[in-house]
C-alpha cells in the first residue's frame, strides 16, 4: 500500500471534523478552545502534506505562522476564560448568555 496525499488529507479532514464536533458539543469553554486547536492542527497537517506534494516550503512556513497565531490566541483566550471564571465561578458556556436577542 502506497500512502498518497489523499490519505493524509482524509486524515486531516477527519481530525478537523472531530474538532468541529468538540466545539459544538462540549460545554467547558477550555475544552471548546482545545477543540479549536485540534481543528488548527488538522489544517496544519493538510498544509504540510500539500507542501510535500508541491515540493514547496511555503506550506510549511504557513504552518509556522498558524502555530504562532494559535499561541497568541491561546494566551488571550485563556486570560479571558480566567476572567470569566472570576465573574461566575464557572466556565460552562451554557451559562454565558447575558447578551442575547
Amino acid at each position, binding site marked *: 500500500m502506497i500512502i498518497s496525499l489523499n490519505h493524509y488529507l482524509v486524515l486531516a479532514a477527519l481530525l478537523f471534523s472531530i474538532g*468541529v464536533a468538540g*466545539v*459544538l458539543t462540549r*460545554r467547558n469553554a477550555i475544552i*471548546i478552545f482545545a477543540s479549536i486547536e485540534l481543528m488548527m492542527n488538522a489544517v496544519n497537517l493538510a498544509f504540510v502534506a500539500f507542501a510535500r506534494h508541491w515540493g514547496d516550503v511555503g506550506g510549511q512556513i504557513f504552518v509556522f505562522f498558524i502555530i504562532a497565531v494559535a499561541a497568541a490566541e491561546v494566551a488571550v483566550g485563556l486570560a479571558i476564560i480566567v476572567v470569566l471564571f472570576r465573574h461566575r465561578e464557572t466556565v460552562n*458556556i*451554557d451559562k*454565558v*448568555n*447575558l*447578551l*442575547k*436577542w
Partner: protein
Amino acid sequence: MEHEAATAAHSSLLWLIPAFPFLGMLINGLMRRRMPEKAAGILASAAMLGAFLVSLLVFLDLRALPHHGRALTQTIYTWFAVGDFHVDVSFLADPLSAVMILVVSGVGFLIHVYSIGYMKGDPGAVRYFTYLNLFAFFMLTLVLADNYLLMFVGWEGVGLCSYLLIGFWYTDYEKALAGNKAFIVNRIGDFGFILGILLMFATFGSVEYGTVFDRAAGFPYGSAVITAITLLLFLGATGKSAQLPLYVWLPDAMAGPTPVSALIHAATMVTAGVYMVARSNLLYSLAPVSLTVVAAVGAFTALFAATIGLTQFDIKKVLAYSTVSQLGYMFLGCGVAAFGAGIFHLMTHAFFKALLFLGSGSVIHAMDHYFHHAGIKSNAQDMRYMGGLRKHLPSTYWTMLVGCLAIAGIPGLSGFFSKDEILWKTFASGNYGLWIIAVITSGLTAFYMFRLLYMTFHGDFRSAKGHDHPHESPRVMTVPLMILAGLSVVGGWVGIPHVLGGGNQFEMWLEPVFERGQEIAALAHAGEHGGATELLTMLFVTLVGLSGIGLAYLFYLRQPKLPEKVAAGAGPLYGLVYNKYYVDEIYDAGVVQPLKATSNHFLWRFFDVKIVDGLVNGTARVMTEFGTGVRKIQTGQVQNYALAFAVGVVVIILAFVL
C-alpha cells in the same frame, strides 16, 4: 424638446431661487437663540419674497424667448459621474417649472407673512421659520431640478420638512405619531420612486429629463418597460400626493400648525406628485396602461375623499380630505393626457386651498384665543362649537366665502375654469365613467365646503358664551387672505377656454412642455367634440355645483337643528309647522342619511380607519412582530451560533462543489 434642448439658454439667476430660502434657513437656524421671533419671521418672509422676485424675473426672461425655445438652464457642478452616466446639480426653468416656482414662492411668501401673525408668542417660532424656509428650499429644488435624481433630493427633503413640521408641537404624542405615519407612508411611495429611477437609468442610461425623454421617444407605444417605470414613479406620486391607497397620512398630518397645512399639505408639497407626472408626460403618454391607472386612481380618490369630507367635524380634516379629493382631480387630468389642465388646477387649487386653510387657521386662532380667555376647555377645530362667526371675523368670512365659491366651481372664479377643463378633457377623451364620478364629486365638494362655511360662520355661536367674543385676526394674517382671495378670483382668467371666448393662454404657455406627450397620447384617443357639447357639459357641471350649495344651505342654514328639535319633543305640532320640510326629511332619510352612513360607517370608520389605516399600522406591527421572532434566533448561546456557522459551512461547500 430636441430643438429646445439645443437652444436652451443659460441663466445665471436660477440658483438664487432656492438660495434665498436656504440663506434664510441658515441665518435663522444658526442664530436660533439670539433671534427675536419677529425678526425671524420677517427674515424668512423676505427670503421668500426674494425667491419670488427672482422667479418673476426668470418668468419674464422666458417670455422674452421664442415660444419653442423657452428653457433656461444653469449647471452648478457635476454631482457625480459613473462611466458615461453623469448627473449634474443643474437647474432647468421651462414653462412648467416657471409656473411651479411662481406658485411655490408666491403662495409660500404669503403663507410666511401670515405665519408671522399665527406663530406670534409661540416659543418655537424661530425654529418654525427655519423649517419653513428649509422646506421652501427643497421644494424649489424639486421643481427646478433638471434630472430625476436632483428631483428626488427635493422630494425627500420636502418629506423630511413636512415630517418635522407635522410634529412641530412635539410634546404632543399623537402629533409625533402623525409625523411618523407621514414619513413611513412616504417611504412606501419612495420605494417605488427609487426603483423607478433605477429602472429608468438601466433602460435609458440617464436620469436627465431631456436625455431620458429623447431616448424614450424611440421606444414603441405601450412598451412594457416604460409602463413599469411610470407605474413605479406613480407609486411614489401616490405617497407624496396622498392618493389611494397611500393617502392616510394627509388627514393625520393636520396635527401640525395650520399655515404648514396650507403651504405643505395643500399648496405645494402634495402637488409634487402631479408635477412629477406632468414632467414625465412623454413617458406616461407612451404607457397607456399607466395613464389609465393614473386617471382611475385620481377619479376614485376624488370621489372617495369627498364622501369622507361630508361627515368630518374637524374644520382642518374637512379641508384635508378636500385636498386629497382635489389632488385626485389633478391626477385625473394628467391621466387623460390633459397635463396642462392638471397643472392649471394645481395652480388654482394652490390659491384657493391655501386661502381656505389660512382662513380656517384664522378661525382656529380666534377660537383658541376665545377659549383660552374664557377659560373653556374645548376643541378649537371642531365646527360643532363654532357658528355665527361671520360678524366677529368679517375679513376671514368674506375671503373664505370666495374660496368656497372658487372650489365649488362657480363660473368666473378660478376653480371653475381649471376644474371644467379637466372635466371637459375627461369627457372628450371618452372616459364617460370617470367623468360621471368627477361630476358627482364636484357636487359633493360644493356641498361639504358650504357645510363647512355655514357651520362655521352662520347660525348661532354654539359654544358657551363668555363676556367676550372671538376676535378677528391681525392684519398680517388677513392681508394675505385678501391677496389669496383676489388670486382665487382672477387666477383662472389666464386659462379661459376658447369656447367662452378666451385664448387659454395658460395652455399655450405650457404647450412646448407637453406637446410631444400629447401628440403621442392623441394617437390613442383622437376625436374632439364640438363647442356646443363643451358648453352643455359646463352648464351641467355648474348646476350640479349649485345644487350642492343649495343642499348645504337647506341642511345647515335653513334648518340647522332639525333633528335635534324633533328629538327635543316640540310635539307633533312641530312637524306640522315645518311640514314644508317633509320633502327635505324624506330626502334626508332616503338619500343623505344613507349616504352619510355609508360614508361615515363604511368609508371612513371601516375602510379608512380599519382597512387602509390598519394596513399601514398593521404592516408596521406585522414587521415588528416578525422582527421579534427573527431576533429570537439570537439565543445568546455561543454554541448555537457555532452550530449555525457549521451548517452554513456545509451548505456553502456543497453549493460550490456540487
